[in-house]
């Protein structure tokens, strides 16, 4: 075992750390932003409204993340209209002129980074919708009844009662999703991105030292996971303050006895 190769090449891991944190952070944030309204819509009784959301969730939870990433990264590149726009269907179109590339292809889908981000966002969004939907549906009926009895409108009830209450309940499950997403982001290395796992791949291939390379990657992931768990604990303590056992701060001395 020779960890000097790791210390000499630590910059690969720190560059990788940045990519990993970016990919996970941005995709989680975007996923959550989309997931909240979609989860609310998903609880609607209107079948036409819930159908597309059900389908989206079913597809993205029903296929492995790596397959989704491959379809987006390699699959889309197969179609000329993705690269050159719908002009390809007109006669006399000459795809050789690379300057004709669509904006979407040139600046978005041709970059591995955005492809990964896109796949991760859709994936986490689907899971988060389900987490939040479950929480909304398990809202104690008493809370809804109380809101109705004081004459709240549906939107006000949603904003003041249902969402705060259910997001709070969804929180621990969402913590799980955050960690899953972090570990899922290791797949980015498969499409040429140099995240932490990608860095380990380079070190392994260069020095033929898989143990040192991947154990270091593991330690990096553990550190991030630790930070996430710690952060979630902090937040949980705050948002579950009303559930904490009552401590009478005026009688400190008595508590000691």
């Amino acid at each position, binding site marked *: 075992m020779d960890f000097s190769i790791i210390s000499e090449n630590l910059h690969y891991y720190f560059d990788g750390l940045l990519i990993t944190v970016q990919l996970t952070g941005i995709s989680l944030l975007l996923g959550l932003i989309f997931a909240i309204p979609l989860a609310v819509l998903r609880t609607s009784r209107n079948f036409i409204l819930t159908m597309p959301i059900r389908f989206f969730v079913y597809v993205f939870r029903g296929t492995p993340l790596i397959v989704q990433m491959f379809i987006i990264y390699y699959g889309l590149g197969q179609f000329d209209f993705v690269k050159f726009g719908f002009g390809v269907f007109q006669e006399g179109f000459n795809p050789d002129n690379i300057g004709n590339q669509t904006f979407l292809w040139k600046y978005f889908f041709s970059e591995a980074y955005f492809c990964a981000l896109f796949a991760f966002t859709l994936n986490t969004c689907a899971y988060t919708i389900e987490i939040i939907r479950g929480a909304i549906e398990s809202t104690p009926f008493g809370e809804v009844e109380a809101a109705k009895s004081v004459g709240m409108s549906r939107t006000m009830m949603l904003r003041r009662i249902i969402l705060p209450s259910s997001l709070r309940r969804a929180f621990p499950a969402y913590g799980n999703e955050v960690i899953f997403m972090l570990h899922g982001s290791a797949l980015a290395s498969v499409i040429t991105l140099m995240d932490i796992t990608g860095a380990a791949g380079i070190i392994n291939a260069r020095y033929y*030292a898989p143990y040192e390379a991947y154990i270091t990657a593991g330690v990096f992931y553990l550190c991030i996971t630790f930070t996430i768990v710690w952060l979630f604990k902090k937040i949980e303590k705050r948002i579950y303050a009303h559930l904490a056992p009552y401590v009478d701060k005026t009688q400190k001395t008595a508590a000691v006895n």
Partner: protein
Amino acid sequence: MKRITLILIAAVFAFAGSAAAKDWKKIRMCTEGAYPPFNYTTPDGKLAGFDVDIANALCDYLKVECTWQTQAWDGTIPGLLARKYDASIASMSITEERKKKVAFTDKYYTTPAKFAAHESFLTRVIEGKLGKLKIGVQRETIHDRFASAMWGKKADIVRYGTQDEVFLDMKSGRLDLALADSVAISDGFLKLKGNEKFQFVGPSFNDPKWFGNGAGIAIHKSNQDLVELFNKAIAGIRANGTYKKIQDKYFDFDVYGE
């Protein structure tokens, strides 16, 4: 207790000793299986290609039984060091750096490296439409090393796990150039249907400093006897015409080089 331990240790050493001196009846071969036309996996899951045929010919020549397994390129040398197989025939160039870790047989072919690009590449160069160039290579190959050392700061070197993925992204237009073995490019990419718009550009690269002295079979350093066995067999199949027969099946030129 102590004595039993000693006996056990002695037994292990005796066994290891006998294993090292064994004459080779069965050789566990390994290849990547994703590097056409040298080694690839056929649709029905069998290994095929120049490397595989050569290895089978070598085994026939030596009258030994060879079993096959595949190993992703990145793990070729670690797998060999971990003795997951006895020999790896995966078009691996014989470089000084790799020789520090594993032993190599004599070369069984040499082909130069070249760039490939879309036919519009030159026009885009002239019109000055190119920003920072993207050069696709397979990760930690001689081509990766060479491109990274020569142009690592001036161009984006995009590294892939397999050569096939480089070609795939070349085709989808994500790469400006691909640097790879000339035969891998022509047979694994240019000659395939739908890739008529791609072609070789620039010179051939074969500086031994970067590209080694041809491709050899990699073997664990402790199995020097196996290296000699294979060297004998390579010379043997070169002499008895088997090599040429296999070569002609895949190429219309002399792939062995000088």
